[in-house]
């Protein structure tokens, strides 16, 4: 059953099917919010709020084929509200990326990644990398960050992102361009390259 068919049956009175919709979208929405906010507890709370709001307002969805843009729009708005309410919370940083830590000898994250992997008992796992990229993403302005997350991780088309964020499509592409360039510079500064990651992972 497609999302449209599921939503149609929900709007026709079978509200219990909403849970099937949740199970389908829970993981992508949670990961979107987690990348946006950088905090697990906030991500959990906001994820629940997204589905509560979607449940209450499902009848207002005009085009059932645009459910993805619609639910990401709800998620993005709630994330903005969360940041306004609680400010920008720091996520738990890795020992690996304490850039000014004396024990690390002021090494950059990329160098640390390389040196860590050369130790016989050490390993760089995907969790460390994800936290590293999370920190890099948090350096970007919010408007660029959300576009990057929607494009790179949620797989939305540019016109879907434009609809979700209620912005012109060229603005979205422009933010994507500057966001990617911003990340490129940060990763370059930290000496994190594709080669380093290929070796480690």
């Amino acid at each position, binding site marked *: 059953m497609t999302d449209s068919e599921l939503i149609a049956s929900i709007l026709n009175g079978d509200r219990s099917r*909403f*849970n099937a919709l949740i199970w389908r979208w*829970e993981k992508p929405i949670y990961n979107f919010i987690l990348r946006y906010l950088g905090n697990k507890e906030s991500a959990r709370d906001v994820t629940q709020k997204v589905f509560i709001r979607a449940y209450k307002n499902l009848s207002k969805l005009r085009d059932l084929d645009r459910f993805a843009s619609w639910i990401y729009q709800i998620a993005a708005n709630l994330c903005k509200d969360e940041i306004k309410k609680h400010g920008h919370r720091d996520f738990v940083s890795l020992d690996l990326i304490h850039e000014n830590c004396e024990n690390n000898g002021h090494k950059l994250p990329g160098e640390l990644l390389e040196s860590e992997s050369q130790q016989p008992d050490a390993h760089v796992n995907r969790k460390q*990398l*994800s936290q590293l990229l999370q920190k890099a993403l948090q350096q970007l302005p919010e408007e660029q960050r959300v576009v990057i997350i929607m494009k790179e*991780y949620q797989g939305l088309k540019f016109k879907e992102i434009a609809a979700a964020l209620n912005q012109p499509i060229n603005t979205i*592409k422009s933010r994507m*361009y500057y966001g990617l360039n911003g990340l490129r510079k940060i990763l370059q500064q930290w000496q994190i390259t594709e080669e380093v990651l290929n070796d480690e992972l």
Partner: protein
Amino acid sequence: MNCDQLRQWMMDYLYDELAEDDRRLLEAHLMACPACQQQVAALRQTSTILQQWEDVDPDFHVVMVAPKRSYLARVKQWFSRPALHVPRLALGFGAALIVGLLVLAIANTEISYRSGEFSFRTGLFPRPQQSIPAEPILTQQTIERLQQENYFLMTRLIQQSEARQRQELATNLLKLKRDLERQRLEDLHLVGLGLEDIEQKTVKKIERTDRSLNEFIRLISSQPR
């Protein structure tokens, strides 16, 4: 195509959202422009690095539980279903008619018991009212007679009550007398026992003293002068 134009299409190209013809134009420019080529490659590399960050499974599940709706809400929802074919007006009118009949019937219900038989009427067709015989009028004589009867009754009641109380008092006094007598006998018995005990102990002491004295006298008598 120049570098500025390429920049506008770069994102579409990077994420395969460019039309076929536009893509060919762009790639032709890239072949001839190392700077743009380098920029596209750098951004593609950044995208590849970002892709290494995998999704995680949430450590919770959201479950929507529909709130309990009142009976009225469920009836409303049933009536508002689009699949309902029977005209709502007809259903509503029918329901109102039945309720109205029931209310009328209940309001005029009559149940009676006469000569060992029950009779029940719903009241839809109420029977005509029967004439009720008039009550006799109370005279002064009747009132006085009733008052006198009440007085005698009250007096008798009081006398009976007094007699009962006297009887109860006599019974209680007799019982008390018996209890006191029994207690006196018990006390005398105890005193008797006590005296016997004292007597025995005294006798024993005297006998012991007597034995000691006899022994002493015998000893003195047996001493040489």
